[in-house]
């Protein structure tokens, strides 16, 4: 069974090097927190850290991807296995102040606790391709694929069938940070955002969230009886 969506919150900001996402409740079993960040500036900066309940629990997220397009746009993804249940804020720190910042934190249950994610894919564009598109080849049918992107446009939407929008944050009218998910497919997953017409500049990443290991089913009654007789 695929991981199950639990809860989320988002934040946008600008003229800042850190932003904090307002606390939201995480609950359930086999939990995972996944945070996507998109930012833009004259020179885009990478994410330095993502910490839940900074100064308290200090739960540090692990980087899944972190890239710029070599210019003004940045995307990163970060996961935290088994976050404490309860409601805590998430502090995101970037290497430099950015013109626009967007972030989306989603919480999940029924996630594998030792191999929570697969191998991420990333891509970017600086001058020719308008719409962020990533193809993830290592997802299974019971994975959830999650993407995050930052694009120089204010009118983007998820394009692929089955792609569920988790965040579509338009910041200062011209920069969008998007996050979406879809059920994995062994034939390959395309995570695509469409609508870009302003400038063909973006950075994006995607990764598969792995389901919790299925419990070993009990033997059928006949076999169980034979085992007892043997």
């Amino acid at each position, binding site marked *: 069974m695929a991981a199950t969506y639990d809860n989320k*919150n*988002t*934040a*946008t*900001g*600008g*003229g*800042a*090097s*850190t*932003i*904090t*996402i*307002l*606390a*939201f409740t995480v609950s359930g079993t086999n939990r995972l927190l996944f945070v996507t960040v998109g930012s*833009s*500036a*004259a020179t885009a900066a990478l994410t330095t850290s993502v910490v839940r*309940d900074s100064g308290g629990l200090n739960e540090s997220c692990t980087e899944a991807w972190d890239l710029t397009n070599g210019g*003004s746009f940045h995307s990163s993804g970060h996961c935290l296995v088994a976050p404490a249940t309860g*409601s*805590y*804020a998430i*502090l995101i*720190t970037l290497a430099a*102040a950015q*013109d626009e910042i967007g972030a989306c934190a989603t919480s999940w249950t029924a996630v594998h606790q030792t191999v929570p994610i697969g191998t991420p894919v990333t891509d970017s564009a600086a001058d020719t391709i308008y719409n962020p598109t990533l193809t993830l080849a290592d997802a299974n049918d019971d994975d959830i694929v999650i993407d995050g992107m930052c694009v120089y446009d204010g009118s983007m939407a998820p394009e692929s069938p089955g792609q569920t929008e988790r965040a579509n944050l338009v910041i200062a009218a011209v920069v969008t940070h998007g996050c979406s998910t879809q059920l994995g497919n062994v034939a390959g997953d395309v995570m695509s955002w469409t609508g870009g017409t302003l400038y063909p500049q973006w950075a994006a990443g995607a990764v598969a969230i792995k389901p919790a290991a299925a419990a070993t089913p009990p033997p059928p009654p006949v076999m169980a009886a034979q085992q007892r007789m043997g």
Partner: protein
Amino acid sequence: MALLIDHQSINVPAGSRDFGPVTIPDGLAQVTLRLARQTTATPTFWAPGVTVDLKSWGSLDGGATWQQWLGFGAPGGILLKRDGSETVESWVSCPLPPGAARRIRLTATVTGGTLVSQLTVEVV
């Protein structure tokens, strides 16, 4: 829309200062914190070398209990944007949890000098 704090002039020496708490009107769903930056037109605001960490705490029970909400941190000085224009404000915005007895308070922690600026808290 409600301006809970409307361009309030602030002068905060190095250290911390609290603002509020103020009551959030029912039915509003998004909060934004803004701090005016130094620009050519506002040369006395938020000088270079002055760093600000603005945190907020929210209450859903009229102030009996509090949890950390949104915030931002930034360095001072004139910050040029991608297009070469000056950044007028540093800001952060988040959806609010629903509730009927919500309150918000802020703490500005300043290092490297005195923060001169204007603080705005807007809810829509």
